[in-house]
């Protein structure tokens, strides 16, 4: 019974391939939907590759490797198991269901078992029906868009070639041969297609330090954003970090019929309501925790739980979007404006349907994207966007609360989207000051240096070095804890602390500001 279902089978070259070949040799009834891709080891198929197949239109994905203990390379089977489990969990969260991805392990002589496995999986996919994901190809930018028009619309011609941007750029300071001035000059000179220029546009952290320094007020991050969109039409300069998993995930979320299943694991003692004038928007933290579990084991979902607890603390019982989608920040900043706009339209619809008057989010990127980028691209939201810090400041200023001070000296890591893009470096510091009992922060002047990455692009040895230097400085100044304002800062700085060559030298406690407040606030 041939159908138009597509199932991608990643098949390990060693044990299971022998079994598969046996099936082929005797013309066994391998379901026609299965497209086999021969791979060297199941452990090398990353979460990004597993998910990429689904993003590109597969209705099911199979990863078949050697049985435990028979891996040619030793750790492949275990790695494949972890990758599949994590991806399945993320698929569940985003509403795709984990059943569309499965891992199988077979010995060379288990051809019958393999056949049964393939047939059973195919039947299951047929029963589930087509995948809700709509494959999205990057649309070419409007023909009218050239590097010259992009430069002109961002007033890059105002560049005086002074070089203040480069002298302040954290990437350049980390030793990378990277210069915003060079990028601007090359693109103005019509050399946007040169590989160095493309690579540089891709490497920019979009932290906004250059914009702060520029005497001509050239908004370099916005220019980079527009250039990435321009390049997207042709080909991407380099794959985004983590194999582009998060971009894939966000693109997949543009499918209208996909219904994410967020907030399934919310603790019972958090009070939320079906309908409420205040809506809490979580963001991607829950996905990060699953994706990075193996290496960093971040606890960024705690930020969301602590935010909800804080809202409850102040007698606010917010509503949640059960099918909440990503805000689209990372798609926009990695050049995929079309899919960002698709996500934005879906979010606008869901937010309007919620009937809420105010949206509170604890993520600076969601805050910036919903409040500033959506209107910039013509998507208007029918509710007020408030950052969790603003809400906390508002409530704390009313009084009657007190704080148990945090111990030790604290370094604060600014979120670029909050402190630079929205000029709110003072707000988190004001909140933090209450927790430190007057102990000054380890602070090389606000806002602090970028955490090292944004939008999951441009991670390299230099951004790593920058992070390491940053942590070292905080340590030298006597800092005992880093307080962050963005889940991504936690992930990136946590990654820098994992440096094997340095052992535990860089290890430092890290906590999100919202969690720190939740930990120490009480009714006086």
């Amino acid at each position, binding site marked *: 019974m041939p159908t138009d279902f597509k199932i991608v089978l990643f098949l390990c070259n060693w044990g299971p391939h022998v079994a598969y070949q046996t099936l082929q040799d005797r013309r066994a009834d391998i379901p026609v939907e299965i497209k086999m891709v021969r791979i060297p080891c199941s452990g090398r198929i990353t979460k990004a590759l597993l998910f990429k197949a689904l993003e590109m239109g597969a209705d099911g994905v199979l990863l078949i490797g050697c049985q435990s203990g028979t891996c040619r390379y030793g750790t492949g089977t275990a790695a494949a198991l972890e990758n599949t489990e994590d991806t399945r969990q993320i698929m569940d969260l985003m509403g795709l269901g984990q059943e569309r991805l499965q891992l199988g392990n077979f010995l060379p002589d288990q051809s019958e078992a393999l056949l049964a496995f393939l047939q059973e999986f195919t039947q299951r996919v047929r029963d589930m029906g087509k995948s809700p994901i709509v494959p999205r190809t990057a649309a070419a930018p409007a023909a009218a868009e050239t590097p010259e028009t992009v430069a002109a619309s961002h007033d890059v011609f105002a560049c005086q070639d002074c070089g203040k941007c480069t002298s302040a750029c954290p990437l350049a300071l980390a030793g990378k041969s990277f210069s915003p001035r060079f990028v601007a000059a090359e693109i103005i000179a019509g050399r946007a297609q040169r590989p160095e220029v493309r690579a540089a546009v891709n490497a920019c952290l979009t932290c906004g330090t250059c914009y702060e320094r520029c005497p001509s007020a050239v908004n370099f991050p916005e220019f980079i954003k527009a250039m990435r969109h321009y390049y997207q039409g042709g080909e991407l300069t380099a794959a985004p970090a983590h194999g582009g998993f998060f971009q894939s995930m966000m693109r997949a979320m543009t499918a209208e019929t996909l219904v994410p299943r967020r907030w399934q694991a919310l603790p019972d003692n958090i009070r939320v309501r079906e309908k409420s004038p205040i809506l809490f928007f979580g963001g991607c933290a829950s996905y990060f925790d699953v994706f990075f579990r193996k290496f960093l084991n971040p606890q960024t979902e705690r930020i969301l739980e*602590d935010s909800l*607890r*804080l809202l*409850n*603390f*102040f*007698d606010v019982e917010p509503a949640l979007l059960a099918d909440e989608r990503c805000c689209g920040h990372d798609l926009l900043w990695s050049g995929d404006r079309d899919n960002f706009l698709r996500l934005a339209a879906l979010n606008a619809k869901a937010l309007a349907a919620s009937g809420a008057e105010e949206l509170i989010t604890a993520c600076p990127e969601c805050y910036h994207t919903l409040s500033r980028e959506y209107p910039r691209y013509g998507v208007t939201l029918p509710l007020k966007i408030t950052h969790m810090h603003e809400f906390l400041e508002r*409530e704390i200023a*009313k*009084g*009657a*609360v007190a704080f148990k001070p945090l111990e030790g000296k604290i370094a604060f890591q600014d979120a670029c989207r909050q402190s630079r893009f929205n000029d709110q470096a003072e707000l988190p510091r004001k909140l933090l000051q209450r927790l430190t009992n007057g102990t000054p922060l380890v602070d090389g002047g606000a806002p602090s240096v970028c955490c090292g990455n944004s939008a999951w692009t441009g991670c390299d040895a230099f951004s790593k070095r920058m992070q390491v230097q940053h942590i070292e400085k905080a340590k030298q100044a006597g800092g005992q804890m880093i307080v962050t304002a963005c889940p991504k800062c936690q992930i990136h700085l946590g990654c820098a602390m994992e440096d094997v060559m340095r052992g535990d030298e860089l290890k430092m406690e890290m906590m999100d500001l919202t969690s720190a*407040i*939740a*930990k*120490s*606030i*009480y*009714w*006086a």
Partner: protein
Amino acid sequence: MYKQITITGFGGQGVVLAGRIVGQAAAIGDNLESTLVQSYGPESRGGACSAQVTIADGPIYFPYIQNPDILVCMSQSGYDKQYPSLKKEGVLIIEQDLVKPTDSRDHFAIPCTRFSEELGNKMMANIIMVGFLAAITEAVSLDAARATVAESVPKGTVEKNLKAFDKGWEFAQATLKGRRHKAAGQIGVVA
């Protein structure tokens, strides 16, 4: 309903104005009866002075207050003088930074002078106290008190004073909220 409110403080803190606002709000805004007795003597520049407001839903035959139901103290000397007269089940409200209670009696406290300074002028401490008093004791309604504040303060300072009133009102709401949570055993976020 028969409520006797005594407001005490230093001369110059606006104690009498606060009393007048509360009484006027009750009489005009809430359609109740009210009387005001103000005491200020030669000590009024810096010494203790007080305002005695009675609010009732029927005629008030005697405006003088011997044992108030609500005592508001904006200075230590006022507290020392008036505290013993407060009824057993009466409500005590103090200026947190200026009054140190002498016993462990339950009371409501607000640093209204500090708040007023933060708002740019310490002269509005009394208005903040009116907001606080109105919210804690519900002796007068929010709308009546707010409208009376707007009428009673000098022209040109109305907006600032309303802000001060709201500050007191909000602080009271937060205080009451905190008490509710504490009574329910929810002292912190996690515990």
